């Protein structure tokens, strides 16, 4: 049995067999919560390979788009460093660094450049949260 299937089965056992047999309210709640946690974990594990692949592709596409959006003029060092981290494949932490740098340096970037780059990053972030919602919601 695959790990995600095992976790889903454990979740079902807790929800349908163990939880209802528990009388005390607090342990009963705990049994139900354990079931919920295992159910979500099962879905997260099942989706992880596809999500990792999609995330890598999205971040690579964002990194490829950034030079055009940022232009050839001087860049605030924090923004340039974050863009470099994205290009180096550092993943979500690099995306966080980029977004933080954009807000911190929005005056220096100017409104058009700030809006263009943040808007592009938000497209990536929307796709990312949509994937997470497949198992979290």
């Amino acid at each position, binding site marked *: 049995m695959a790990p995600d299937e095992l976790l889903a089965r454990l979740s079902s056992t807790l929800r349908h067999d163990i939880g209802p047999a528990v009388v005390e*309210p*607090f342990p009963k*709640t*705990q049994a139900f*919560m*354990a079931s*919920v*946690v295992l159910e*979500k974990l099962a879905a997260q594990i099942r989706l992880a390979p596809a999500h990792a692949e999609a995330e890598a592709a999205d971040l690579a596409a964002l990194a490829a788009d950034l030079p055009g959006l940022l232009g050839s003029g001087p860049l605030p060092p924090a923004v340039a460093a974050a863009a470099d981290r994205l290009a180096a494949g550092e993943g*979500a*932490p690099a*995306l*966080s660094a*980029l*977004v*933080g740098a*954009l*807000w*911190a340096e*929005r005056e220096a970037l100017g409104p058009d450049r700030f809006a263009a780059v*943040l808007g592009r*990053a*938000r*497209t990536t*972030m*929307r796709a*990312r*949260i*949509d994937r*997470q*919602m497949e*198992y*979290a*919601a």
Partner: protein
Amino acid sequence: MTGGTDGEGGGAAAMEERIAAYLRDQLDASDLTLSGVERIAVGWSHETWLFDATFTRDGAVHTEGYCLRRDPGNALLREMSDLGTQFRVLQCLEPTDVPAPRGYFYESDPAILDAPFLVMEKVPGVCPSPWGRDGRRFYEEAAARGELPRSFTDALVTLHTLDWEGAGLGFLGVPEPGTGFALGEVAKWKRLIEATGVEPDPILVDLIGWLEANAPSTDRRALVHGAYRTGNFLCHEDRVSALLDWETEVIGDPMYDVAYVLSDLNREGTELLSNLVERDEFISRYEAGTGIEIDIDACNYYQVLYGMRSAAFWMSASGLYADGRNTDLRLARTAWSIPVVLDRAARDLGY
């Protein structure tokens, strides 16, 4: 309720005796006995015990109800919530019209009950959770009768028209005029996020950036509860008998509370605000009672801020479980609440 702490199973009887011994000393009542001792499963930040104490004084037998809250040191909002501050707030509120339990004793010395605790009045009333079927039915029926929705609004009016300086609540800290309150709240929840040691999600970084760049400027000041909704007050005979959960109170913009009331986060399966009150009725009664015109733009901002606060709560809560500091599985489950609030935050920001 928290896991891994004293007072569960066989520990409950020992705790009961220790509480009784403490009260015998405090009340100078050597014959004091406890009855109806109950550790209730509400709240995520402190243990809560309810009981009645019976003792003789001046030749007469008295029975008084008490509520004891103990800080287990490993629960939600540990970094933000302090029982000593809560006790002081309750003392300040006692002579006012704000419905709140009277605070009797506060002990910071862990030698007494292994952790700091406060003892306050057990106020008559019930506090159904609005998230369960029974609670939703309770508030639906109360809404139909009409009295509780008015009392809910009136209690907020009382809170927001309180002379908080006169009541001695300035010790909570008074924000700078302008954007001081909003930026102070953002900074507070940022500290909680940083305390988790977890790399913030890119959407959370975006959210914080937006909040810092768009903080509303206001000089409105009031005592703000910080979590004003059903489930955080006691109802007795269709009235709000006591506001509870004084853990996020702050001196600041009253729109912070109004935004929480208006938020659809605090209702389920109903258009009634907080599962209880019609929007138009709330707005007109609140504005008439306070003389404050509701600032919808500020409310919209604070609703986005609540998204950040929720993310901070859930990061802290799930971290407590992940670190092994707390064994309550409700905290573990909140790891999957983080994407849910961030999804909503992204929509609030337009994507």
